[in-house]
């Protein structure tokens, strides 16, 4: 097909986790979509940890699944170990982590992309965004040829002016062994975007046969895999009803030929292991800090506080004698081991000494050294909540380019940007997620109102309505959005509805049936009570329904309070700030706040209130101004502020 002659609805630049979610969402919404990447075999690659999920992050993945994203399914179907985190700390923070097969994860995504209608993959380097009258209308490719598109999504990850560091040596690259992109970064600066520099890192990779597992503590997966996707859960349930709980022992990995379903989800989980650093490890790092790219002053970008390099851990947490190291296999067929917790930018020979001082790793063979990478990001306060840039119409940004870290954060933004790019191309208003309905909303609101000064990672503590935004109820929270988008299959949407009705019916049964003087609903509120204690054999609801009822009963008071707070907070979220407001003229607002507002140009009063440096008094004044501007508009009074 001759791609150049065609005008696409949506062009997505980048084939990472933001890129594939954006492209799939757009194509599945029926928009003609082009995915631009350097190498189609690199689409969906896991450049760092081969795992999906984790606390706060799995909330995003569950939300993506509810809306019709691919990440959850892809993780479930290529997962080699499934675990629930925080199982005893309460349902709001319960999370899932899936160790994935590093080969099969991208392979499956690539196959999904190949079989999705309306979606073309074009192997090239995007060198320029073509802008006309303040609106993006296409891109220029490596060979200088233009590619026209009604909306563009930039999901370039760490490739913008990427620079890799190992010890004192450094070279340009987007990932190890892949080239970086410089011209696009220059183009963004020319268009007027404020750009900054961030850094992240990755540990070395070790050969699995060179480790002594006897010296480590084994960490197995869970018998019943906690899937993230609706589809894998359904398949598992169906399978276990049919097979009466018997595992399919006859399945062998050699049979894995179908990239969409390489093996039955949850089948044949692999072990991880835990080992620890010791004083000798720390001594080696301390002695060589001067040669570390990060500590030797070679890197200007700001690193992740929450996912520290091992140098960071030793320097900043020097009082700990030991740190955990998680030994994670990279896949069934893979010889590579990912020693999670050893991310560093030391010279290779020091890395080898350091790794070999750790119990079980004494004879470790290096496949690749760890490295640090710095890259350009664009200040995300230049985006609106749809992820469209305020500067250039129809240009969207998603993922690490917005200063985030993590596949999940990237995928979440990619999906939202893809959806809104598609809606832009069709002339529809954007679909906005809010802090009250999803982690997606929390993340995007944080990015566009507060900006980032270090790579942004999701945490449950970022969500003020945490008790309501749970992983387990993502499908309920987002059912209406899913219906609007129409990406999720109609069958599944009607399953959502049926389950919601079942919850209502069960609840009213529990409220109107009594046992020893109290309703079954009251009974279920007891801390030790389980749904099975109050279940009715005749109409036994699914586990999904039972889980919601248990949580609803036990948390009822809290949830009601959260919902009341949401309703209250919603008021200022719905007050829109006129685009033409001139903050410079509102001299009663503090100077600092005025500058921040002018710079960020929030869309709503709620956003304004969350901008750091804008205090309640400033917001109150702003509220008065908005009111006045609006009444002035109504009365048609000219010349008033």
């Amino acid at each position, binding site marked *: 097909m001759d791609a150049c002659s065609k005008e696409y609805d949506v062009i997505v630049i980048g084939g990472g986790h933001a890129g594939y979610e954006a492209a799939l969402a757009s194509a599945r919404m029926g928009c003609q979509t082009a995915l631009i990447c350097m190498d189609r075999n690199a689409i969906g690659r896991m450049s760092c940890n081969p795992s999906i999920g984790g606390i706060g992050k799995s909330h995003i993945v569950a939300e993506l699944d509810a809306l019709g994203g691919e990440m959850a399914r892809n993780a479930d179907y290529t997962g080699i170990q499934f675990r629930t985190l925080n199982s005893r700390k309460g349902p709001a923070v319960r999370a899932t982590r899936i160790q994935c097969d590093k080969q099969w994860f991208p392979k499956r995504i690539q196959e999904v992309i190949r079989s999705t209608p309306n979606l073309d993959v074009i192997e090239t380097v995007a060198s320029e965004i073509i802008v006309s009258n303040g609106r993006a209308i296409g891109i220029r490719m490596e060979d200088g040829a233009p590619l026209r598109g009604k909306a563009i999504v930039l999901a370039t990850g760490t490739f913008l002016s990427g620079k890799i560091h190992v010890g004192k040596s450094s070279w340009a690259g987007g990932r190890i062994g892949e080239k970086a992109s410089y011209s696009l970064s220059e183009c963004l600066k020319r268009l007027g975007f404020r750009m900054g520099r961030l850094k992240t890192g990755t540990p070395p990779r070790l050969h699995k046969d060179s480790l002594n597992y006897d010296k480590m503590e084994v960490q197995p997966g869970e018998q019943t895999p906690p899937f993230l996707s609706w589809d894998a859960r359904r398949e598992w349930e169906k399978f276990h009803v049919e097979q009466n709980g018997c595992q399919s022992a006859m399945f062998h990995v050699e049979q894995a030929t179908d990239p969409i379903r390489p093996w039955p989800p949850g089948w044949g989980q692999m072990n991880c292991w835990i080992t620890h650093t010791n004083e000798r490890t720390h001594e080696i790092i301390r002695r060589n800090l001067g040669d570390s790219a990060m500590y030797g002053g070679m890197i200007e970008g700001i690193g992740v506080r929450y996912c520290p390099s091992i140098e960071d851990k030793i320097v900043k947490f020097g009082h700990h004698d030991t740190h955990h190291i998680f030994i994670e296999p990279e896949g069934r067929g893979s010889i590579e081991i990912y020693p999670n917790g050893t991310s560093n930018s030391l010279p290779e020979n020091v890395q080898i000494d350091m790794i070999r001082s750790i119990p079980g790793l004494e004879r470790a063979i290096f496949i690749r050294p760890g490295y640090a990478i710095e890259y350009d990001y664009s200040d995300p306060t230049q985006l609106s909540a749809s992820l469209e840039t305020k500067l250039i119409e129809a240009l969207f940004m998603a993922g690490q380019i917005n200063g985030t870290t993590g596949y999940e954060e990237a995928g979440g933004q990619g999906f939202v940007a893809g959806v809104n790019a598609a809606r832009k191309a069709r002339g529809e208003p954007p679909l906005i997620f809010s802090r009250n309905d999803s982690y997606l909303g929390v993340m995007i609101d944080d990015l566009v109102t507060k900006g980032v000064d270090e790579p942004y990672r999701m945490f449950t503590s970022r969500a003020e309505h945490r008790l309501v935004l749970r992983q387990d109820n993502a499908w309920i929270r987002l059912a209406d959005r899913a219906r609007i988008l129409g990406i999720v299959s109609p069958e599944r949407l009607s399953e959502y509805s049926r389950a919601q009705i079942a919850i209502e019916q069960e609840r009213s049964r529990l409220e109107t049936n009594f046992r020893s003087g109290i309703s079954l609903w009251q009974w279920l509120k007891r801390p030790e009570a389980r749904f099975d204690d109050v279940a009715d054999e005749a109409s036994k609801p699914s586990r999904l329904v039972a889980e919601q009822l248990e949580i609803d009963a036990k948390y009822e008071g809290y949830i009601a309070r959260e919902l009341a707070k949401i309703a209250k907070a919603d008021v200022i979220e719905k007050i829109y700030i006129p685009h033409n407001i001139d903050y410079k003229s509102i001299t009663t607002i503090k100077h600092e706040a005025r500058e921040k507002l002018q710079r960020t140009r929030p869309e709503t009063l709620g956003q304004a209130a969350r901008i750091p440096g804008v205090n309640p008094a400033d*917001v109150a004044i702003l509220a008065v101004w908005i009111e006045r501007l609006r009444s002035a508009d109504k009365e048609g009074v000219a010349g008033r502020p």
Partner: protein
Amino acid sequence: MSDSDTIAAIATAPGEGGVAIVRVSGARAFDIADAVFICHHPPPSRRPGGTFIFGKVIDSDGAILDEALLLLMRAPRSYTREDTIEIQGHGSPVVARRILQRVVSAGARVAEPGEFTKRAFLNGRLDLAQAEAVADLIRARSDRAASAAVAQLEGSLSRQINALYDALIETAANVEATLDFSDQEIPEGVLNPVIGELDRIIANLHAVLSTWNEGHLLREGATVVIAGKPNVGKSTLLNALLGRNRAIVSSQPGTTRDTIEESVVLGGYPITLIDTAGLRETDCAIELEGISRATRELAGADLCLYVVGSPYGPDDEDFRVIETIPRDKLIIIFNKADILNYYNIFANNYHSFIYTSAMTGLGLDDLRAAIIRKFDHDAPHPDHHATISTRHRSLIESAIQAVEAALIEMKKESGAIDLAAAQLREAIESLGAITGRIYHDDLLKSVFGRFCIGK
């Protein structure tokens, strides 16, 4: 310059005084000054801030309303941080009102209650706690109350609450950390100090709360109810404490049928003295109503003076009432001590009692001293000059409740830490609402609704 319209109000208390001040604040304040005030060249608008000008306030037809001083303050060097003028006229309320009318006809608008302070707050001059203190300062009814309000204005409440807010944030952060990181990712024992720290925070919150008693007494004044059987000399006692004949007294039992309220300042405490109908069995409907009012007043009183007028001391009927009153809110008065020969039948340490003669003044100084002692006792923190309002009190109480609920979850074997964290967030929100660290529209409304006009 300011974007808001120009407001005006009479800033001095109503009634006859030495001087009456009309304050005008807003963008048009100087234009208005030029229009209503004549003086030597140059006109007020062309003079520097901080100057006093002598001149005359003139009506729109040129008639002189008053001789006056005009004080000129340029933004942001004024209370509201806007251009402000103060016209200080002679103290007649009639003249003050005419000056205000004149100013309004020249383009100002009459200020809403608390609007000057609201502007000071909105323009960033005051934080919320300080703004509330100004409201208290205006309403303060005695010197003692005024100095507590000043301490709050200087931010001592803000400092205390901010310190607790920070401590709470820090502790909550430990809890949040255990939620956002798996057990292997964070050091062991992150939660260990949390329980002790929360206990400490609760204790400190209680300490702040205890200043409410003092604050409440200083702000709203203490209510002291005089009760007892008929004809024991309650009204005579009221008159004696007031130093004037307010209540009708007679030897007739049941003379006082309704409650009588009067204000007096004792030891710096503004006190509302309430004389009540004598408590007795009666068929008279009016007297019955009086008695039921007396009983209601007793229930809400900060202090009850129960008057006994029999040489045998309180009888069973008296004790039925006395026993309903908390011991620390009761002083028993053996009145008519000049003519009655009290036996030492009541020499116990259980109740405070004083011998008086309201007629001769015997024991009245002792009684005043006892009342002051009693209120000093309610204000147990002499160094806590800052006192808290009813709004602060309910916020601190809800913070305490939330922290206590969090502690219960934390101490439970199977407690859900996400619920504990939710409670700590509630507590943080409550404390933040005191100093305005969290934006909340209703909060501003409720704070500024309480202000009296003029400041």
